[in-house]
């Protein structure tokens, strides 16, 4: 029977810890002083959002083949003053050259900073996109640490409606999100709202929420972001 010596064990543990730190540093480069600040200031919750991160929303668009598509999106979203201008990792080709280039994939990810969280409404955003004739397949909200979504459900006319949301939505959300971001929910029958609590630092796909709502038989009038303490 062979056992590891204390020295071997210490080296293995230390080497693994250094490897993890090194990999983390490689993926998220930051000054060493930041590590000390993270270690010291653990505060009440971990922070996996990099320094300088801001609230943002990322739209995964299955179809943005050319600047024509992109310009339509940009023009439509201009009216949403709470969104900063769109950012793309790779700009699509110009309309004239799109056909010649004939890429296999027309998918693009468009990212926006949220300038004013209090005004953000993801139902309006989704609707605006659909008015253009294009639809995202993911609408990911992130960069806010701890936050919740306030969903306004105009059709809650009776107790049966409320019970239906109460009993089905949580189950559907758990199924839809597969535990990725959904933490819990509470319902306010008087205000006709459902508050969806996201996990800490989660990337929340709002379309998963609207899909779960649709499966429960409801549509939201608005989906807003709430941060800070609950009143």
């Amino acid at each position: 029977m062979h056992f590891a010596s204390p020295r071997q064990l210490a080296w293995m543990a230390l080497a693994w810890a250094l490897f993890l730190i090194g990999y983390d540093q490689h993926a998220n480069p930051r000054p060493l002083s930041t590590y000390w600040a993270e270690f010291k200031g653990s505060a009440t919750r971990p922070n996996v959002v990099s320094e300088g991160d801001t609230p943002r929303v990322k739209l995964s668009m299955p179809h943005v083949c050319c600047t024509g598509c992109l310009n339509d999106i940009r023009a439509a979203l201009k009216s949403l003053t709470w969104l900063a201008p769109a950012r793309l990792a790779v700009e699509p080709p110009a309309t004239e050259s799109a056909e010649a280039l004939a890429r296999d994939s027309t998918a693009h990810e468009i990212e926006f900073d949220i300038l004013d969280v209090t005004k953000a409404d993801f139902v309006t955003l989704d609707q605006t996109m659909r008015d253009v004739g294009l639809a995202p397949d993911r609408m990911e909200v992130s960069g806010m640490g701890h936050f919740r979504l306030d969903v306004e459900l105009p059709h809650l006319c009776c107790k049966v409606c409320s019970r239906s949301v109460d009993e089905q939505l949580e189950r559907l959300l758990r199924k839809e999100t597969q535990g990725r971001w959904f933490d819990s929910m509470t319902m306010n029958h008087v205000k006709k709202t459902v508050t969806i609590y996201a996990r800490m630092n989660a990337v929340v796909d709002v379309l998963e929420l609207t899909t779960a709502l649709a499966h429960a038989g409801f549509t939201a009038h608005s989906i807003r972001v709430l941060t800070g303490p609950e009143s």
Partner: protein
Amino acid sequence: MTGAWPRARHVGLLLLVPAVALAHERFIRHQLKQPLHDEFFRRYPGAFLGMHPAMLRMGLNAVIVLAAFAVVWLVRHPIDEAIERAVVGAGRGVQHAVHLLACFVTDRPVRNRVFYAIGQWGVIMFLRVPGLVLMYSAANNSLVMPSYPLDPKTEFFFKMAQAALAVLILTQTLLPLCGALLVGTWIYLNRWGWMVAADALPVLSVAVVYLSSPWESHKLTITDLSEWQVRWVRLTLGFGFFALGWLKIYNHDLVAGVADQYPSVLDDPMVKLLAFGADPSFKRECWVVSFALAEVLSGFMVMTGTFLRVWSVIMAAMFTKLMLVDFGWNEIPHLFPIGALTAIAFSSRLTSELRPVEVLEGRAGRDGKRLRQAAIIGGAAVGLALVVIFPMLFALTFTDRANLR
């Protein structure tokens, strides 16, 4: 229903309900709805020791409870003998049952087939369940437990690394390497902050067993822990809870946030017992301190091996209840401490750190020096309880929590 059952049920509740928020605040909702009275936790001019009178009272209550447990532990043998003598005429079956129960409660080896079977199963579960917890965390985009959410840029690597480690653990392959990887990962967890890393201290208890296993672990059926392993498992596990208890007072807003989100936890009988006599106008503040002290007490008992089986069973039952009744699926990582507590509760190789005191008082007893024996027992129990509770409680009033905002 007879009168005895409700009483028993209340005692059970008293033991099971406490610590509803034990060590899991970060993966359930914990937003503070109203600010606490910060001055309650800080220096309180004009009061004895500069501590808020309610805090002082709760500290005193904790000292009394801890000292009482220590005294009973040190005189357990005469009590056990008296009880076993009392049932001599009750028939062999009763005698045997009382003897087994006494052995269980006083941490002596229990000669019973069912006990051995549960113990063997407990060790197997303890050694393998971290694999499941790692898989669960990987599936939830977190590292080790949901307190450590992964960055999207690194999550693929960490998820795959956890899956690989889980496979090694579940197949019991290269356990010393698994132990070293767990320790290394815990060091890395400090990147989320030292206080957050403290949440994962109990994970190190299984690493102790892995580290002390042979390289050929995959060829062995490990169903028993050595005395050395059991000792280190209880030391690391107990210290983890002990430290987490103190951190609850230091980081009071986090714990109070859980109470704000789940107000029913404020009506906790065990915690109320520790808050007995404290100013009721500081209900939430008193809850935080008494709840933290309950965890400090249980952690200390486990760490020192004082009624280890009793505390292990209580804590394992409590974690099971949290998982099945209170918080549901989110609590699934607590399978890990349940495994650890089951393994030590059903081990017949238990030792106690209070052994030197027992030797001293035993010698005094054999020499017929009863007063000296009583002084050793009383002095050790009260002295230990005072040293465990007050210096840290006092020191915490000096700490600046500005960085917690």
